[in-house]
């Protein structure tokens, strides 16, 4: 969900002047540009945005976006991002990381995130290889493939991020393409506007190490499922139960035709609403800005708690 600014920030103010160290032609650039465009269009004040990254080429993106950024540990981008949103629900929180980060070392957090449904957006930079360590096979590399950077063909089956996202409980599940800025920007905007946990799986060539899943590979194969009539919106639990299996079937398509677009858009209870069931004042008070002391004297008083043990 979006909290927009009363005075829109200047265009370009979402980019830092940090020199970008991705390889020329890297698919990461398309994602960075789309994200910056999306933020400009949504006009969220910079100080109210938090972008987290894990470790890897793509996870350096926090340094290039002029918002609050947490460059976390390998695999921990999504889990830290959820905590930021839980700590301060007023923030717009975006997590970015590669497929190795999110579905290899961080897969436990990916699955658990679906159970919570924190209102935030997770961008998966999906290129099939571990670029920063010179191109080892990552969890999404198709079975049997052997990009030039690996020593032997890949004998593991790939994880399907969309299928796993649907199974885990993500309430907005989508795929886009880093060389289709218009589609990617629009998908990111929809993901951020969605109230709940959004997955944006971005097909993204690694020009240095993955010579199979290239622009030439993707361009003729990717098609937009929504243009072919798929309606991802589930407006109640029954529709959700009907939509999910169909979305799963679509997510399994891979080969001559590769689907992209929004597979599922379902609004249900978000984690802040669920937390409010346990902590009635949660979200009403501002945990960050409201003081916890007055001149050093605690505002909490545990006298009642002490008495309960007497």
């Amino acid at each position, binding site marked *: 969900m979006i909290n927009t600014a009363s005075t829109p920030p200047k265009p370009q103010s979402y980019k*830092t002047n*940090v*020199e970008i*160290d991705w390889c020329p032609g890297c698919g990461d650039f398309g994602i960075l540009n789309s994200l910056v465009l999306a933020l400009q269009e949504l006009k969220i*004040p*910079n*100080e*109210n*945005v*938090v972008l*987290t990254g894990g470790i890897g080429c793509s996870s350096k993106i*926090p*340094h290039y976006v*002029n*918002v*609050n*950024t*947490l*460059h*976390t*540990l390998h695999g*921990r981008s999504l*889990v*830290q*991002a*959820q*905590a*930021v949103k*839980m*700590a*301060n629900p*007023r*923030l717009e929180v975006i997590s970015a990381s590669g497929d190795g980060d999110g579905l290899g070392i961080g897969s*436990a*957090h990916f*699955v*658990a995130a679906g159970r919570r449904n924190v209102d935030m957006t997770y961008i998966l930079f999906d290129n099939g290889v571990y670029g920063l360590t010179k191109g080892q096979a990552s969890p999404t590399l198709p079975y049997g493939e052997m990009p030039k950077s690996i020593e032997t063909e890949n004998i593991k089956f790939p994880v399907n991020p969309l299928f796993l996202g649907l199974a885990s409980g993500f309430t907005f599940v989508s795929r886009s393409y880093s060389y289709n800025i218009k589609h990617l920007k629009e998908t990111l905007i929809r993901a951020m506007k969605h109230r709940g946990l959004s997955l944006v799986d971005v097909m993204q060539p690694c020009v240095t190490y993955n010579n199979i899943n290239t622009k030439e590979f993707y361009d003729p194969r990717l098609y937009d499922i929504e243009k072919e009539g798929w309606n991802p919106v589930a407006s109640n639990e029954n529709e959700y139960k009907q939509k999910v299996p169909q979305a799963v079937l679509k997510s399994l398509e891979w080969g001559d035709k590769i689907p992209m677009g929004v597979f599922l858009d379902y609004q249900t209870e978000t984690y802040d609403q669920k*937390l409010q069931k*346990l*902590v009635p*004042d*949660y979200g009403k*008070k501002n*945990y*960050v*800005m409201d003081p*916890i*002391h007055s001149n*050093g*004297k*605690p*505002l*909490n*008083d*545990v*006298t009642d*708690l*002490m008495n309960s*043990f*007497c």
Partner: protein
Amino acid sequence: MMHDLNLMVAGPQGSGINFTSDTFAKVMTREGYQVFTNAELFSTIKGEHSYFRVRVCKDIIRSYSERIDILIPLDAKSVLLHVKELAQDGAIIYEDKLEDPRHAAVPYKDILQTVATKFGKALSELNVMKNTVALAGATKMIGLDKEKLKRVISENFASRPKIADMNNAIVDEVYAEFKAERTFDLEPTTYKKRMFINSTHAVGMGKVEAGLKFQSYYPITPASDESNYLERVMGKYDFIVEQTEDEIAAINMAIAAANTGLRSATSTSGPGFSLMVEALSYSGMTETPVVIFYYQRAGPATGMPTRHEQGDLKYALSAGHGEFPRVMIAPGDHKEAFYDTIDAFNIAEKYQLPVIVLLDKAMAMSNYTVDPFDLSKVKIDRGKLILSETKDYLRYRFTDDGISPRSVPGVKGGLITVAGDEHDEDGHIFTEDADNRIKMMDKRMNKMASVLREAPPDLKVKFYGLPTNKKVIVSWGSSKGPIIDAMEKVKDVSLLQIRMMEPFPVEEVMKYLKGKTIIDVEQNYSGQLADLLKEKTGLEVSTRIVKFNGRPIAFEEMVEVLSKPKLGKREVLTYD
């Protein structure tokens, strides 16, 4: 007149032994007695042999006794295992007839049958209330007013009044029908209001008082009791407790919440801490004020999950790759645990670094009486936290004291860039400049000297006993209790309790230990504090008294070892 009285409730896990001992302890607490308990649980839910000890005295007591005055076994196995510990003039309350002259023959069956009839129940339905029969038998022998016992029972079953009524009817019957031959006359005391708590409660209350807003945890014995306690009170005090998918998530969430501006913490035990270690290093590098509550248990690996040990001192001090500043505090009792918890948050935020509070299973599961905390002594210091609009902001700005102003998301003009890679003042990572590396390492590591300089003396060490004693025990954590109790019998030895393990208070330690005969007491195999002492000060201990069988130190074994005319280099305590 007895100075102290020791009651043991033993039986299979799940048979109500915990309930029985807790009820007794609460009644005695309300009588104004000091109460100390020790729980020895088997790592199962139901069936295996477990036992609780309750020691009662009008004076403060800090350890359990090997002597049992009243034994309440709830099965035959418990009779066999514990009767050897029963005092010559003790009593054993057991439902079947025993040849032992100490057997207190409470008419279990008649009492239960009377109450069952009165409530229209089958006798078998009241089997679970046998422990109440025994408990009432004990309180009658001690000469307690039955109404006081009934009041605690009613409170315990507040949500199930029918159950409370039945249990209380049992109490009435026992007091009417049981003719106790043996009685126990405790030295009288006057009422004083005290809490009956363990360290998970003390830490929990400390966190609430300190303004905690975010706690994350993954279930683990014995740490999760603290998080579960916080879950019970979070609705009232407005904070969140998050049960995560694993301990890696737990600490990463706590770190992220801290960087978002909340006082945040995680609690765990050894196996969970091991999973947190990478992120601990990250919190040092990113200057994140996160607090980790580390309840040690017997390791290695899964070890003995419900048993006690202080085996992780050196590990917690060195865990994490690379060199980064950390503060580690080891409270020695529940009262210290409360105040240290608040200090830990203040230190974490003031110096922007991870703080580890090192506790142990004995503290987590040993309930005892504690005077209410003095809240007027509590102060909150959030350091250089910025919550209003700022400009020209750099998260890792070099300053004279090495501590940068700390902004958080949502502050206009105060965008933060937090990075675990080596970074510039602005948090960006595209420098591996050699000079910057030196400046950043100095910035972070120099905090340790500031902590040491500014920490109050009694957060670093505490000294007990006569300063003129030639022999000084050095110890830490929950070992303190039995040592201080033993020092009331063995007067020629003093105690230096080391509380701040990192940065190590060399000056204070030297002041108390230089020129002394040093005796190390700790509950691990090797004597880790003795090693640390040597590393930091060059001082050698003459004896390492260690205990590592999974049980805390008993009062008598501590007296016995300290009374030896000549101590060896290594003395192993074995009482269970």
